[in-house]
Structures are given as C-alpha cells and as structure tokens.
C-alpha cells in the first residue's frame, strides 16, 4: 500500500537517512534565524 506512494524511488532507509539530516538542519536554521532576530532587536530595536 505504502509502496504505491513512493514517487521518488527512495527506500525507507534512504528516506530515514535524509530525514535525519534534514530535520536537525532545519531546526538549526530556525535557531540561527531566531537568534539573529533577538540579537538585532537588542541592538537596534525596531518597535
């Protein structure tokens, strides 16, 4: 059933491996962005 929706041809293991890299990278990016906004607002408050 699930195989029917495999459009990229990635195996479960490959998908898990990519996911294990993608998600921490995304959270790291979000952390960086939020931190940059906090620091910027501390130095140059815009409201």
């Amino acid at each position: 059933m699930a195989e029917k929706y495999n459009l990229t041809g990635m195996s479960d293991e490959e998908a898990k491996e990519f996911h294990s890299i993608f998600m921490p990278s995304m959270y790291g990016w979000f952390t960086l962005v939020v931190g940059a906004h906090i620091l910027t607002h501390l130095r140059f408050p815009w409201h």
Partner: protein
Amino acid sequence: MYKLWQILDPRQVLIAICVFLIPLGLLIHFLLLATEDLNWHEDGRPIPFKAKAAYDRAQQGLPY
C-alpha cells in the same frame, strides 16, 4: 514523517528552499536598507570615528 521523501524529491525540495529563501532574504535586507530609520549603514551608530574625535577634542577645549 520520513516517508515525505518518498513523495517529494529531496533535490527539488532543497533547490526550492534555496530559490525561495535566498531572494526573500535579499529582498528584506534591501527593503530595510531603503528605509530611513531601519538602514543600519547610515544610522550613525556607532558614532563615526571623525565625529567622535571632533567631540572628544571639543570636550578638551581643542580647536576643530
């Protein structure tokens, strides 16, 4: 959740993220630089070296 990558091609997703976020970041930065009060290049902070030097000299009673 990992099964997302069996539906969406990781290469296309990463390219789409880059194509979306890079122009968005550039756009926001240039929009801010184009404003008067949010332009961090011309807001006088920190005080320019020449202005501070002139202020310090004035405080000491020195000319110019």
